[in-house]
């Protein structure tokens, strides 16, 4: 069986790209670039399954779950992301590989089967969105990567790395080399493995988190996840342009 695996890796180097032999291989997947492949509702389900919020400071429920994203907002975000990468996998492979069995290498299909499956792409109904990532850029100088997600049952198989590699490949082909990614503590190791590091120019990452110390009836805030962000007052300017609805607290 080891010989067969080696044969697979020779023909399909992407399958075993990790040098660590004990890392579990990914199932057969198809990677697409472009927002047209992503259905906002499927994306919302994927984000929910991975418990990933598009808000950096999400309002978590008592059991630690983030609320599901607004599909309309997802649609807008997809339309205005410079790079959108989606990863699909056939339902049966998701079940097979995601079952958590340690012997999935043994139970994987024979090389011939793999060939046939790769030659015949899965139809849209047959496949599930299992991975996603996107980047926002200004088309010339800088880009930032957001929302890189893989469903939990297929994590730790190198799919996330492939997503990031694809995003950076597309960005560099457009001449953008200043690529950033905001990382929480537990995302840091992943991005380090993808070739990201602390800023060599020593910049400090900062986010706007100002909330009014106590809520006064006439201070304008906007809800962002669990934060109520203070809208900087603009003296006469703000009273002239603010929406009268902006005072009501709305979710997402």
């Amino acid at each position, binding site marked *: 069986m080891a010989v067969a695996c080696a044969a697979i890796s020779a023909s399909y180097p992407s399958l075993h790209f990790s040098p660590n032999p004990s890392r579990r291989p990914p199932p057969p997947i198809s990677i697409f670039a472009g927002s047209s492949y992503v259905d906002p509702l499927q994306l919302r389900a994927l984000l929910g399954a991975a418990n990933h919020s598009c808000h950096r400071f999400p309002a978590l429920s008592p059991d630690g779950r983030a609320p599901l994203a607004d599909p309309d907002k997802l649609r807008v975000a997809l339309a205005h*992301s410079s790079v959108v990468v989606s990863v699909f996998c056939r339902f049966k492979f998701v079940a097979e590989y995601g079952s958590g069995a340690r012997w999935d290498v043994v139970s994987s299909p024979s090389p011939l089967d793999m060939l046939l499956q790769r030659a015949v792409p899965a139809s849209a109904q047959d496949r599930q969105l299992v991975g996603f990532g996107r980047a926002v*850029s200004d088309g010339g100088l800088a880009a930032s990567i957001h929302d890189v997600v893989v469903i939990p049952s297929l994590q730790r198989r190198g799919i996330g790395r492939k997503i990031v590699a694809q995003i950076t490949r597309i960005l560099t082909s457009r001449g953008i080399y200043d690529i950033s*990614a905001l*990382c929480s503590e537990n995302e840091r190791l992943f991005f380090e493995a993808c070739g990201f590091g602390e*800023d060599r120019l020593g*910049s400090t990452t900062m*986010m706007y988190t100002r909330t009014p110390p106590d809520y006064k009836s006439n201070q304008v805030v906007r809800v*962002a996840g669990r934060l109520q962000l203070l809208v900087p007052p603009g003296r006469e300017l703000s*009273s002239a342009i603010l929406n009268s609805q902006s005072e009501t607290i709305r979710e997402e």
Partner: protein
Amino acid sequence: MHDDDGGDACSADSHRGMLGAGASSGRSPSLPYAVEHTKRSGKVLPLRASFWDSIKSGFLNNNTTQVVEPASNFIEEEDTLAQEIILLESTQSDGTLEQIMFSSAGDVDAYDVQALCDKVGWPRRPLTKIAASLKNSYLVATLHSICRAPGLEENDEKKLIGMARATSDHAFNATIWDVLVDPSYQARFICLNLSDEELVSPLLTGPGYDFLGDMGRGLGKALVEQLIRTLLQRDIGNITLFADNKVVDFYKNLGFEADPEGIKGMFWYPRY
């Protein structure tokens, strides 16, 4: 504590969200043509507002002047993305009227931006890249100085003296880049009871009181605050920037937090 490049507020090709205040080289002549004239469609609401309070709080380095005002019943128009506001107005001794105008219309030439970058001491970037980045940024806020000599109503001299831009996915995230204010412009509006020593004080160097820096901070504050205001009104909640060490305090003053909850920005350094 601060890396000293002889006053240059940058190193290498750093351009991430810094307030630029490098050595001034005098005014650059305005060029008769533009590489790419970026223009955004949007209603322009000419509004006059006195932002002296905003700039004064920059002087006093006040932390949170939470000026609260009653919300009006004014319903905002569909797209108030484009606005022009006169921030300051002053009449010189020779009768010249000078105005500082804020605009979020994004109507700015790549050439002007490059000239401004030169003034604050940033290394040059290709013009086409600057033009592309301006065109594709979600928000571009600018400060222009408009000089009108007495009697010559048609011949306004308009000069770019400050800029800030933000990229966004229009829904969740925004990153602020390239916050610049022309340092040579700060001297104009300083109070007249300054000593000569204070007038020639060194440029923005640190947390100590620096008068020439405070004016720039006030103008920069107005720029960034307007960006934040617009982004929040669009319910874009993740507002990020990458600040040079020297300006971290400036952004803290504006409500930004460094590495909130351990969130850090990482950058791609491919190993070939």
